[in-house]
């Protein structure tokens, strides 16, 4: 069905946008490298392909006059999600252009900001491209060549967004989100637990985030303590009497 197809495509675009942002954050820092620039380029191109595909699909669906009201509302919601995604992508592209220009790689003294990030971003890019391992085949001067391409691509995305604004009449304020506040907590327990220990290091609040566990620990400790006391009492009694 059209809706499910749309949703999967939108999810894919969402994934690539998130990965792209992650890669742009690493630009200019010590995890910046030739590979990163190539990853950025590939992710960007993939994102654009997905964006175009999404757009054609959604515009065709929205132009269709013979759809029910519910369907139309659903498509409008998907449209709003799509536009937000593209906006985020556009901003990230513009920023990557700016940072890329400020931090060229092929200079005698590189002044990359030492942010503490030293690992590579290969895995993130692999996730974006949905491949197991990334292959790097770019030239040495990718950082300058790529920037020119980036400029043209930004112009293309701008144009696409303008067209979208003009052609598709969707009122964003009429769209209601399906998820209520706090919806993200429901299905992502696994994501939360694994990073709990990590976060408490950089946070000030030494809050115990998993209350049930500590309660159990307390009871257990109490039991052990009383057992030790009893044993000590018994031994003492025996010693005194013998």
């Amino acid at each position, binding site marked *: 069905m059209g809706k499910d197809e749309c949703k999967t495509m939108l*999810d894919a675009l*969402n*994934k690539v*946008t*998130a*990965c792209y*942002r*992650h890669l*742009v*954050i690493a*630009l*200019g*820092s010590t*995890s910046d490298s030739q590979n990163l620039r190539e990853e950025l380029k590939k992710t960007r191109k993939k994102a654009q392909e997905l964006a175009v595909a999404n757009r054609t699909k959604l515009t065709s669906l929205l132009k269709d006059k013979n759809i029910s009201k519910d369907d139309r509302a659903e498509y409008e*919601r998907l449209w*709003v*999600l799509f*536009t*937000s*995604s593209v906006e*985020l992508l556009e*901003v990230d592209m*513009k*920023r990557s252009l700016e*940072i890329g220009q400020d*931090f060229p790689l092929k200079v005698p*003294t590189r*002044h990359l*900001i*030492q*942010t*503490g*990030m*030293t*690992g590579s*971003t290969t895995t*993130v890019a692999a996730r974006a491209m949905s491949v197991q391992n990334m292959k790097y085949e770019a030239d040495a001067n990718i950082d300058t060549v790529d920037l020119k391409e980036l400029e043209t691509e930004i112009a293309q995305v701008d144009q696409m967004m303008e067209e979208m*604004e003009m052609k598709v009449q969707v009122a*964003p*304020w009429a769209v*209601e*989100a399906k*998820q209520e*506040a*706090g*919806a993200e*907590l429901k299905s*992502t327990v696994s*994501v*939360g637990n*694994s*990073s*709990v220990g*990590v*976060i408490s*290091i*950089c*946070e000030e*609040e030494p809050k115990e*985030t998993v209350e049930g566990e500590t309660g159990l620990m307390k009871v257990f400790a109490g039991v052990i303590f009383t057992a030790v006391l009893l044993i000590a009492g018994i031994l003492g009694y025996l010693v005194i009497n013998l």
Partner: protein
Amino acid sequence: MTINTLSQDGVQRQQMPCLTKMERMIISMQDPDMGIKLRNQRLLITVIPHAMTGLDIVEWLIKKCSISDEEALHVGQLFVKYGYIYPLKEPRNLILKADDSSYRFQTPYYWMSTRWPASELDYAIYLAKKNIRKQGELIEYEKECYNALHKRINHTWDFVVMQAREQLRASKQRRKGDRIVLECQEQAYWLVNRPPPGTQDSIDHGPERRTTNTRVQLNAEFYKKEIEHNRISLARNRVKSSICLESYVKYCEQYQPHDPIMQGCLPSNPWITDDIMFWNMNSETVALPTKLRVERWSFSFMELLNDQMGRKEFLTYLEKEFSAENLCFWQACEDVRHGETAKIPEKVDEVYKQFLAPGASRWVNIDSKTMEKTLEGLKRPHRFVLDDAQMHIYFLMKKDSYPRYLKSELYKNLLARAIVPQETKKSVFPFMRRQRHSSPSPALATQTAEDDGKAKYSNSNSGTASRL
């Protein structure tokens, strides 16, 4: 389309110049030879490089810019305030301490920029991510922001949730050390851009002006106006600084003997000796003025007019000359200008009847052009309708009567009779000398009226305090 907070009327915003300067400094700090010394941060199991102490930063700044300790600390504070460097131990406390507390550089994506202000969508995504990580345990103000955002950008809320989940999944792909750094960086960014209530907001954006109505059309009309404006500005009267500085020096020299702070005042400074003779002698209604005061009238016409006594003397002189109506007219005009708005029409009427009407009792001599203009304006009286006539009379008096007054017998007599007060002699015996302390505070006076017992205690307290 979603509400776009980035594009402001399509005009490309400029980066603030101070931020560009800060960025240059940060980049120079990265130099492998001349940059800041970096250490490793140890957290239980992981070791994260590229940490520096506050002392390192301050010392580097002192060496690089050859500035003092204090200044280096202040400059370092700016870096932390604007988010280029963030503290590691106490992330919410954005200050630089010149000791061994550690700091780290912020990644360029999160640098403060007026071109890319932090958007609501991004903040919503950040809060959603935090919500997931902390299982719903957000701080109070963050919870409020979260709810407010949920209402405001409700149409993209699904996107926020989706994107938050995806971003977390993407960051899971990295090493533990990098993950920690990423989270600290993002947290630092949002602490600067959305400061918690009660902390200082370092980015004073000011109100967002959506001035789409007054968008200027760059057409021929606009440029014609610009050219005219510039032409008028060129023709503006300018004084050479050498000339105006000369007159400034002359002014200072002339007024120096009259300045109580520079020259001291006779009989004595009331603020020091609690002796109000100085004010009494210079009040408006005193029999004999002081010499300084009378001399001052000769400096300029305005000085004479500003002093009530001077005005009175001048009036007596003008009466002798049969031109007193000028001064009366001038006074009446001043009253209109500075008086109540409701009374203006009747006041103007009075003035007209007394001074301007043909055959009036105290008719003033104004030239015909000004008279016509004033009479025209009297039909619709407003505060400044008599300005032209008043100016004319003022200049008449200034050019004509005032110099003659200064040369007159009246003035010279007054000058001769004017007194020069004696400086109060300091008593020979020290214990007879007047205590030079500030008067008791008025708050104290009210307290004594209220409560006697308490007042006595506080009185003696403040007495001892003031004597210290």
